[in-house]
Each structure stands twice: as structure tokens, then as C-alpha cells.
């Protein structure tokens, strides 16, 4: 799975670089009046840009008919399904890591005490974004199950889609106000949705997209 994921990310380095460049540029623009918040703003923008770029990866892969290549490779369907679900999340994780590094370096450079709330903010935002990113993959699986007339799978996928949308929303609306608890829950939902996206893809009857 990791080899497939890393291949996808290596191949999409232009998308990643462009997204991060846009994120950095947007962060620079937004922090013109508040230079003391430069690092955190850029860090957060990089995370958002990574989420956007990560969401485009499945569609980009589909456009290049990647599934046709898979019969040539000695990889199992479970690995393919896992790699497909993990690649966007991995890009988001890379963005979160970059954002956190920026914030940490900024704090160290300024000689300030590293504030975990501030430094880990990119990770917190990434955790909140992860469920929404994976919802796109779940939606694709709802459609695939519908097209293949797998009514049971379609209902399950639709339920996952609904819960995956409702739960993070409830968290964000303040049902759970404690920030880190909310982030941890969102991360849990995101991971669960990533697993669900992989499982639903694995259960498909056709991979001819």
C-alpha cells in the first residue's frame, strides 16, 4: 500500500508543490497586517491547500485511467483500495507536518517558548478537514454501488456518508467545545471514513471507471 501511495504522491509532486506555493502565497497575503502571525497563517493555508490538492488526486488518477495499469502490477485489491483512500490523507498529513514545522521554527527563531496550542494548530485543522476530504471518496462509492445495483452496499455507503458529514458538523458546531477533544474526535471520524472508503472500494464489482 505504501509503495502505491508514495508512487502517487511522487507523481503528483507538481500538484503538491503548486498547492503549497498557493498556500504560502495566500498566507503571506493574509498576514501582511499581522506579521507576528505569519508562520501560523502560512501553516494553516498550507494545510487547507493540501486538503484541496489531496481531494483532486482520485479524479486526476481516474483521468489517466490508472486502473488499467493495475493488472500489470502484482498488488492485491485490498492494497489498491487502501492506497486509494490513504493517498489524499497522506498529502494532508504532509501539509500538516509542514505547517507544524513552520510554526515551530518560527517560535524557535523568535526565541519564544513553543506554545503547543499554536504549533499544533495545523495538525488540529488537518484533523478537522480529514473527514470532509474522505466524504468525497465515500460519495463516489455510493454512486458506484448504485451503478452496480448493490442496494445493500449503497445504503451502507449512504449511511456512512450521512454520519461522516453529520458527526464532524456536530463537533464543529460546538457540541464538544473542548478544542483538542473535538480534534481528536474529528481525527477518529476521518480515520474511520478512510477505512470505510477503502472497504467500500474493495467491495466493488467493477474497477472500470
Amino acid at each position, binding site marked *: 500500500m505504501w*509503495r502505491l501511495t508514495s508512487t502517487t504522491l511522487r*507523481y503528483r509532486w*507538481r500538484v503538491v508543490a503548486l498547492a503549497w506555493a498557493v498556500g504560502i502565497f495566500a498566507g503571506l497575503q493574509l498576514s501582511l497586517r499581522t506579521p507576528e502571525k505569519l508562520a501560523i497563517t502560512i501553516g494553516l493555508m498550507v494545510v487547507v491547500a493540501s486538503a484541496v490538492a489531496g481531494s483532486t488526486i482520485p479524479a486526476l488518477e481516474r483521468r*489517466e485511467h*490508472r486502473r*488499467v*495499469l493495475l493488472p500489470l*502490477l502484482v*498488488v492485491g485489491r485490498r492494497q489498491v483500495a487502501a492506497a486509494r483512500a490513504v493517498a489524499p490523507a497522506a498529502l494532508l498529513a504532509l501539509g500538516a507536518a509542514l505547517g507544524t514545522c513552520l510554526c515551530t521554527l518560527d517560535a524557535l527563531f523568535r526565541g519564544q517558548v513553543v506554545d503547543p496550542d499554536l504549533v499544533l494548530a495545523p495538525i488540529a485543522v488537518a484533523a478537522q478537514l480529514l473527514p470532509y476530504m474522505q466524504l468525497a471518496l465515500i460519495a463516489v462509492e455510493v454512486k458506484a454501488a448504485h451503478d452496480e445495483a448493490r442496494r445493500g452496499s449503497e445504503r451502507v455507503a449512504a449511511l456512512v456518508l450521512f454520519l461522516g458529514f453529520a458527526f464532524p458538523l456536530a463537533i464543529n458546531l460546538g457540541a464538544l467545545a473542548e478544542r483538542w477533544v473535538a480534534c481528536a474526535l474529528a481525527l477518529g471520524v476521518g480515520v474511520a471514513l478512510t477505512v470505510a472508503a477503502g472497504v467500500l472500494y474493495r467491495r466493488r464489482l467493477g474497477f472500470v471507471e
Partner: protein
Amino acid sequence: MSEHNSEHALIIERLVKRYPGFTLGPIDLDLQPGVVLGLIGPNGAGKTTTLHCLTGLLVPEAGTIRVFGRENQPDDPRWRQDIGVVGEESGFYLRWTVEENLRLVGRFQPNWSDQRARRLAERFGLPLTKRVNELSKGNKAKLAIVAALGHAPRLLILDEPTAGLDPIVRVEVLGMLWELQEDGEHAIFYSTHVLSDIERLADELVFLSDGRILQRSAKDDLVESWRRISFRLAADNLSLPGVIDHRQVRLEHQVTSRDHQATLDALRGLGAEGVEQARMSIDEIAVEILTGKGAGRVAAH
């Protein structure tokens, strides 16, 4: 003969794949090493569906597929080590070079040989340093074939590999496949509706229509037994053995026979005059079979 030759390259048993308004199968097929099997049928017959089931891109509703004794389990991909797949489309990484793509395939193929892939690429005149999106259609097809052969698969699955190629490249590709089957080790499962492609290559032909196998025959048997026969005979409403099509203008008759020997024997008995026979091309035979005229017997293999 190697020990591989003692087992089937491919066994398909009771394969069924359903779509709304179309059902493929049940399909039963087997393929021995060293044999080139041509799967022939019109568009929509189920050729690509069959091949997608073989390569794991489609999950059949029923049936089993075995490649050199290994069932094509979705989560145990070892059976893929023995197959090379060339389709109409290529899923290569367009912005990577030919070499990078081949290296990538090699990383996921335990039996991959860089040397072999390089040799094939050189033989084909494939520019290794060119990006895939800069390749001509012909070169993309060559890349697909090199990528499919780099791990020396014992079963090659081809789905219209020459579609859209110019005649020169087509001949090159077919020549390469011809050489490949010469060693008697490789089995080739070749799906196409361009019959001239497999006329030279195929040992056996399977005719598929509306998701069902109409007939399976050795190519040489078909070419040998099918004939167009013309003769003069003062008789109407003739019933001749092996004849599937009969046209008559006064005393002149023309028949299409799938068993020319039986037809000629009968004509001799009837005292027909001016008997002339002509061989039929695979194209002509296929049309007769696929239009339902000659599919009366499902040939045993």
C-alpha cells in the same frame, strides 16, 4: 517440453457476469501453453467483459478463473505474476518517461527483468527518455507490450492491442507476438474484432456473440472445412449435408458449406456438373458463424 506445459495456462469455469440488459456466460474455456486463442465477436459481444474478468478489473457473479493453477483471488495477487496484459487503453503515468514507467512496473513485479525490458524496448525502437504523453499512439502500444512482457509472463492477455495503429506498427507488433509464441511456452489470449490480426497468429478461435460462446474451433480446421461451392444441377429444394447457405439461379447453384467433403460427396452422388470450390477467409467464415448461419455445432476442443 517444460514442466509448465503439463498444466493449463488458463481455465475458465462457468464464468458469469451480469449487467442490466446483458449477461456474459456461462463461459467455459481453457487454454494450453503454446496456444494462441483468438476471441472473436462483434462489438458488445462480451469480449472486453471477459478479459476484464480475467484481469481482475471486473468481479464475476459466478465462476472461477485459474491461471497456471492459481485462482485469481483479488487479495492474493500472485496469479498476476504469470500474466501480461495489453489493453486498448494504457494507464501509464503520462508525465513520466518510458523508462520511469517501466521501472515502476518492475518494482511491483517480482519476476521483472530490467535487461529484458530494455532489450524489448530497443528492439521496438521505443525512446526510453521520452515522456509517455509525448509518445505516438504506436509507441504507446509498444510500451504497453514491453511493460506486459518485462517479467516474461507465461500467459499474455491482449485486448485489441493493435487498435488505432498504422499498418507498419501493426505488422511490427504482430511480428513480435508471432516470435513470442514460437517457443511454445507462451499462451496468448487475444481478443479482437480485426480478424486479419489473428488470421496469422491464432491456433484456435472462439466465437462470442451476445455473451455466449457460439463455437470453438481450430483455425486450420475451419479454413480446411469451410468452402464456397458452385455447381450445375437440375434440382430444386436441395438438402445437402454441411450446407448453411444456398443460392440458386436456374440450374446454377452456389452453396456455403462448413463440411465441404460431405457436401462434395453428396453432390457427386447427385451427379452435379461443373463443381468448383473456393476456400473462405476467416473473415467470411466468422461472418457466417456470428450471424448465426454456421453456429450449428459447438465444436469440441
